[in-house]
């Protein structure tokens, strides 16, 4: 075995991908030191999908969604909380670890930690335009603290406006409406979730919001947020000049990758952290996993980042395998897992496998007694994605098909 007790692995990021890297090192019996820099949140890792679903609806508490502890695995593990990786030395294998902004304790310039391998799992943060920041009744939803702040406001039954109707915005609108709040949903595009789902499921999603009493504004962008008293109602101004007032505003404006700390390190951070098919970056002992990883997907033949739960854990395991394979002189396999996500809205389960971006054709069937739409997405005649509502078997069957069609195509080129 090439792995020795004198080796140090640094894991940057305290959510699912970082957690899974540490768990995978433990599972493999890694005997060196692991320094786990868990980031600014100062919390143990938790299940993020639950925030906009069960947690916001009060069905579970923060304790219920903690990921299992890793202390019992016999790892030489040092957990560093309220701290971030602030810099990667361009010439040496070492990272600067500093206290997170706002962390308690003495101000510090931080410590340089040398590593034999670095796993970058710093993920994304909620996109918050500067002009929208600083109002107490305006919230993003990314962290447990965000969700708890929103949750604290719900007992007053605030009139709520959700801005943005992607996965988080649409799901938050549904969860808050299910809590009995009056909800308005501001949709930048023509339909909610249309950037992921396209026309048919987007329209279905819109109809569900309307059936449950959510009002919507379509093709609308918020241009300003203001409040005459610091903790008072928020006035939203839209691009058509209209205004509305809300007691609570939830922003679902997407996410930005948290990898600015890698600028100047020699790595490609133009959209997340660029890596090869095996999740290796341009530096041979630096790997990426989770939302931040931008890799060329061998099944779809182009680069992508995937901001979903299943991807984070699967990539984390794979990144460790890539490192391990290199130590053992093996060529690491490409990361070829087909993306998957789900969304809970009004008791319905939306599920999608594959990657629909760039699709040029869809076929729409009706499934189940209720005739929910089931959409198959094609690109150049090949199935690239499928999505449905309360149809897990049909969706998962397509996963195998997406993978195998692609494998056949790859096989045809291999010879």
């Amino acid at each position: 075995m090439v792995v020795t007790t004198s080796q140090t692995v640094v894991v940057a990021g305290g959510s699912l991908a970082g957690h899974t890297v540490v768990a995978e090192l433990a599972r493999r019996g890694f005997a060196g030191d692991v320094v786990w820099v868990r980031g600014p949140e100062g919390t143990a890792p938790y299940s993020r999908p639950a925030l906009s679903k069960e947690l916001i609806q009060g069905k579970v508490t923060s304790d219920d969604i903690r990921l299992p502890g890793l202390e019992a695995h016999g790892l030489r593990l040092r957990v560093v909380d309220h701290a971030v990786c602030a810099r990667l030395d361009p010439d040496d294998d070492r990272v600067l670890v500093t206290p997170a902004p706002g962390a308690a304790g003495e101000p510090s310039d931080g410590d340089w930690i040398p590593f034999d391998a670095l796993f970058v799992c710093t993920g994304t943060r909620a996109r918050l335009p500067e002009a929208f920041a600083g109002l107490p009744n305006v919230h993003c939803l990314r962290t447990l603290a965000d969700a708890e702040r929103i949750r604290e406001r719900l007992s007053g039954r605030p009139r709520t406006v959700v801005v943005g109707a992607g996965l988080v915005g649409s799901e938050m609108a549904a969860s808050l409406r299910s809590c009995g709040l009056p909800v308005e949903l501001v949709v930048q595009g023509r339909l909610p979730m249309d950037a992921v789902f396209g026309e048919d499921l987007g329209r279905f999603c819109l109809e569900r919001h309307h059936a449950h009493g959510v009002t919507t504004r379509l093709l609308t962008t918020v241009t300003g947020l203001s409040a005459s008293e610091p903790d008072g109602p928020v006035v939203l101004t839209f691009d058509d000049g209209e205004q509305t007032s809300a007691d609570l505003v939830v922003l679902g404006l997407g996410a930005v990758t948290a990898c600015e700390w890698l600028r100047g390190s020699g790595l490609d951070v133009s959209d997340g952290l660029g890596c090869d098919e095996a999740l290796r970056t341009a530096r041979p002992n630096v790997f990426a996993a989770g939302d931040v990883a931008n890799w060329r997907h061998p099944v779809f033949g182009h680069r992508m980042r995937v901001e979903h739960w299943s991807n984070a854990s699967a990539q984390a395991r794979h990144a460790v395998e890539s490192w391990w394979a290199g130590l053992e002189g093996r060529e690491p396999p490409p990361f070829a897992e087909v993306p998957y996500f789900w969304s809970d809205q009004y008791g319905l389960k939306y599920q999608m496998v594959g990657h629909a971006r760039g699709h040029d054709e869809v076929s729409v069937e009706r499934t189940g007694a209720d005739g929910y739409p089931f959409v198959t997405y094609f690109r150049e005649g090949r199935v690239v994605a499928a999505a449905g509502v309360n149809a897990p078997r049909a969706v998962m069957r397509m996963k195998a098909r997406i993978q195998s069609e692609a494998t056949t195509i790859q096989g045809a080129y291999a010879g």
Partner: protein
Amino acid sequence: MKVTVDRTLCDGNGVCMGIAPDVFDVDDDLNLHIVDEIPDDPVIRAQVRQSITSCPVLALSLEE
């Protein structure tokens, strides 16, 4: 090897089914079904362990 599910937690999100389709099956009413006998196959058993640690609602547990 035996897998148990806490049905008060399971929400039928299908993550386990995506990882280990030979063992987990979620029906269209979102109820999870687990095969009685998990095949004695190292690949499938690795998938089962991954499914347990990947469950976003922490509903699965393993009895070796």
